[in-house]
């Protein structure tokens, strides 16, 4: 455990070294947040509630979604690909720690940094521009945190599974971008699923992606009843467990097919 905590610490220190990147990231995200909030304001145009969600709730949804997006950046996909290409994956595997443990620790370290460097400034800017995005209640907030954590794991496992393709194909090209674009739509991070056509929504509700953004955000703004929330979180846990099992199986196979290039 100590080894992993050390990785988290190193990650935090190295991220703190790039000041311009941080400012630029905050500006880009702030721009996006502002534009999306204006988008929703224009869409509502004074209408009270559309499909059961009010304008202020939708703006809260957007602000929290943008902040979550910055906490949910997964380095693991690129990390596996680059260490397979450079051959350093062999050295990682020699170390007396689990390589996926290392990768997860790195991403968690990045998240801690992102929280203080980007999430907090964004929350402040969002509050100044559109008012404090308050959760529906304290209980809702606690459930949001729980659901967000499970969502984080689901997102991480999906990213790791994609990253492991690199063991086979070495270079993944734009595959990661494709995944990013698809996830953006299917997870409800930009547009919540309740605005989707009915048939499509039914399919998406069953897929794991909604559990990453839409579920925690829906809980945050108080979209679901208590019974529904619990049911959905149980379902989220089931997805997490299922993906974990797939991950364990694939990981064993992937390790066997590692090809060391130089190194």
């Amino acid at each position: 455990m100590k080894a992993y905590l050390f990785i988290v610490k190193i990650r935090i220190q190295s991220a703190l070294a790039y000041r311009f990147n941080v400012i630029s990231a905050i500006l880009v995200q702030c721009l996006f947040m502002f534009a999306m909030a204006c988008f929703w304001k224009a869409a509502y145009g004074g209408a009270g509630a559309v499909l059961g969600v009010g304008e202020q709730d939708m703006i809260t949804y957007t602000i929290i979604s943008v902040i979550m997006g910055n906490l949910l950046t997964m380095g693991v996909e690129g990390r596996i690909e680059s260490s397979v290409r450079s051959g350093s994956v062999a050295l990682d595997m020699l170390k007396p720690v689990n390589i996926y443990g290392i990768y997860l620790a790195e991403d968690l370290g990045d998240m801690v940094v992102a929280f203080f460097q980007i999430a907090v400034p964004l929350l402040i800017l969002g509050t100044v521009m559109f008012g404090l995005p308050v959760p529906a209640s304290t209980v809702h907030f606690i459930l949001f945190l729980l659901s967000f954590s499970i969502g984080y794991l689901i997102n991480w496992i999906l990213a790791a599974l994609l990253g492991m393709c690199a063991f086979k194909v070495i270079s993944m090209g734009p595959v990661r971008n494709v995944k990013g674009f698809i996830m953006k739509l299917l997870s409800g991070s930009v547009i919540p699923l309740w605005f989707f056509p009915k048939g499509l929504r039914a399919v998406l509700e069953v897929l794991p992606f909604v559990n990453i953004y839409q579920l925690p955000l829906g809980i945050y703004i108080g979209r679901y009843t208590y019974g529904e929330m619990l049911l959905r979180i149980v379902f989220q846990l089931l997805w997490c467990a299922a993906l974990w099992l797939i991950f364990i199986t694939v990981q064993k196979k992937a390790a066997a097919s590692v090809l060391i290039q130089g190194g």
Partner: protein
Amino acid sequence: MWKKIKYYVSVAAALTRLAIQSQMEYPFMLIGHVLANCVQWVVGFATIKFVVDSFGSLGGWGYESMAFLYGMSVLSHGLVVVFFIQTWYMPYCVIEGEYDMFLLRPMGVLFQFLFEDFNLIGITDMIPGLMVFFYGCAKVHLTVNFANTAMILFTLTGATLIRGAVWIFCGSLSFWTKSTANFTDMVGELFERVSMYPLTIYPKWTQVLFTFFLPLAWITFYPVKDILGMEGSVIPVPMAVISLGVGVVMFALSCGLFRVGMYRYESAGS
């Protein structure tokens, strides 16, 4: 003069051919990018469609006109990525002293730099761009005539020049800052937000900002509004012509900044 232009064109053609040949060496990369770009724009477009379906309209714009606006935006994005993607690497070139090579040759530095690596992959952006564009044209029942075609071509040229100018401008800043600070993400986000959605969804001060001070609204918003005949304009000149004018002026200014910046270029140590 004529001879000089001919010479420049022939060099551009030769460089372009080389760039295409080298990129054709990786056909799967190309196919991957076609897929990635298609997915990206389809996803972006779906977002608009779902919201407008639920709400009816957005900032006074219906679904059909937004489809056309989106198509124009993606198309001009594709064009600028084809011709000006090199500008993304300007900070790197300044720091690493990559301009030495161009300075030694008897041609304009910016010209050489822009044509050095014709971006074939950028064309993959054009494919979804054209799809959405024609879909938008069909949705708004655009009549195919000389005036409309000319206006669309004017707009696309102007839009490409405006976008390219902003990129060159941001890249040239590194002559002064001497840092690898990269504005690509920021500018990309700005372009997307201003050119894909009607400007009317933003507050008044933002509209003024993007009309006069940072004229990004001319990339698509004003000319498209004019082409669709959405409201009688105040000025008798077609907006597409103004867009082209804004593009030419901005491009000239950014080239000027690049030239001035070049005097501050000091190559790399060692």
